[in-house]
């Protein structure tokens, strides 16, 4: 729990190398830190500050703006129950109430065993499947209270290994082979692209 480990530091350098300015990699790197530790630690933020050459305060400034970054430990499974308008119309409040009762936590709280954090969240983009939720950003659609109980039971019994630990988003990363990379379009390199100038330049 701390700085990015050696593997992640290597990935971090790869990501930074894709941008014309290093600071652009900040959000992806904060995700990387959260993937490593389950939340974003102060040490990781300092390390990222070094990597992208800004102050730790700037990293905190960005980090604290975004809902997904947790600056304190959360449950292994972060259950986000949507309470956007479409879900609201189809029983989101009742579902949230049920979830909080069942797990014995209140808005954003974590169960004593550290397994689950439950939170009512703004629209998560599955409006026609209302009410919906995400567990570590994996969807469950048209969720009844019985469905919810079954989901929690499945997770507890280890039957949902398809849901990765909190912090992991895409299981596939972009990887640009060195020989195929065009490279970042540097701000300082104020060149008209060759294919445009060949064609009689800018319209």
């Amino acid at each position, binding site marked *: 729990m701390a700085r990015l480990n050696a593997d992640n530091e290597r990935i971090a350098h790869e990501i930074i190398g*894709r*941008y*014309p*300015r290093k*600071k*652009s*990699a*900040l*959000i*992806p790197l904060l995700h990387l830190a959260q993937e490593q530790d389950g939340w974003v630690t102060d040490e990781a933020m300092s390390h990222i500050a070094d990597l*992208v050459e*800004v102050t730790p305060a700037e990293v905190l400034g960005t980090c604290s*703006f*975004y*809902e*997904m*970054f947790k600056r304190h430990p959360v449950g292994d499974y972060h259950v*986000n129950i949507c*309470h*956007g*308008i*479409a879900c*609201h*119309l*189809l029983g989101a409040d009742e579902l949230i109430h049920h979830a909080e009762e069942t797990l014995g936590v209140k808005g954003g709280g974590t169960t004593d065993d550290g397994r689950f954090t439950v939170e009512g969240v*703004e*629209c*998560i*983009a*599955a*409006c*026609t499947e*209302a009410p919906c939720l*995400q567990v570590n*950003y*994996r969807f469950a659609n048209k969720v009844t209270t019985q469905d919810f109980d079954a989901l929690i039971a499945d997770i507890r019994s280890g039957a949902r290994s398809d849901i990765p630990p909190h912090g992991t*988003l*895409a*299981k*596939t990363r*972009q*990887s*640009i*082979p060195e020989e*195929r*990379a*065009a490279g*970042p*379009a540097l*701000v300082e390199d*104020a*060149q008209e*692209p*060759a*294919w*445009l100038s060949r*064609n*009689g330049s*800018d*319209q």
Partner: protein
Amino acid sequence: MSIPKITTARWDVEDGHTLAGYERTGGYSALKKALEMTPAEVHEEVKTASLLGRGGAGFPAGVKWGFCPPGVWPRYLVVNGDESEPGTYKDRIMLERDPHQLIEGCLLACYALGLSQCFLYVRGEMAHGQERVAAALNEAYEAGYVGKNILGTEVSVDVVLHWGAGAYIVGEETALIESLEGNRGMPRLKPPFFPAAIGLYGKPTIVNNVETLSNIPWIINNGGQAFADIGEAPSTGTRVFAVSGHVNNPGVFEVEFGTTTFRDLIMGEEYGGGIRNGGSLKAFIPGGASAPWFFEEHLDLPLEKGTVDRAGSMLGSGAIVVMDQTTDIVKACHNVVRFFSRESCGKCSPCREGTSWLEKILQRIIDGNGRRADLALLMDVCDNISPGIAWPPKQTTICPLGPSAVSPIASVIERFADEFDAYLGEPSTEQAVEVR
């Protein structure tokens, strides 16, 4: 007339998201065709198509493409995949089911305008969309469609997958750019920060929505005119609408733009399938949470930008949320206002303070602690965010998020006065509080 599926054709193709599936169904043919054309010719086709931006504002993409100042390099493309509008998720499905179509659209835009690098910004919560795009990019790089010397030509463009971390406001194009620069996602003041002139890193930047770019391969394959022949000018082509809420068959549907009506979409058998349980329509949101609400009398309006604008609302990003007669309008209104209150970035005080005041006042009305004067107070706060409470809205804020919180209140406060009254109880002798 039967309308071709333009952006959703591969949603039913099992492996449509893979390179093999995409190529088998005609994928990357537009790129090959475009590389034989001049960049200006590609741009011209998009102008002819009269493709309106699908992200919310509905500005013609071909015209927006022409706004880059000549001679200023490099230019960037930023794809707005930070879709968070309550009521829709069309972009998420496009990212998951047809990522190559979007990538091809990006490459065509880059070729046409001389954009040197593309950043594909996907909403943070869309983990599956991110992995589908990442896998598609990896395949496309391998196959020579993206990166250095695309298909053996001198065209070299990297497409970089970038992902957000949960902030609705980042869907606003200047906030998106701030976020992509590694900052808090707060909108910039326009002017001077029109992205086409002063965008990412201060350089000319085209910001286009996922659905907008997903139309480009079809336009190049079939010609701009064929696209313009579909729909009702200036609302050409098809559009993808999400119908959610109290309908029998909620879903995401691609329909002809400009001719299909709200009634078709909400009541039509092949679409929304009518109000659930044989109930009646109370209200519907025609274009996402930011849009003023519509009612029974608006059902026969066509889904056409100009018509809907003149009727006092907007099509926005194509999110239609339907409410039946059982809906508690005050609670629904509070729900939408709470969304904007939570998503306000905090840069402008009328929005930062105003939206949370609106939410709190509505909450106390629902809790039974409301006062008669609260109705006037709500309107007064609304007026401070959006002077005159008119449509299209004026704003005291940098971006339209603040005025968006005004829409639901202005839509229902008079029409459903009886529902507010039911919460407020009998008019008392209590003196109204002077609010100014």
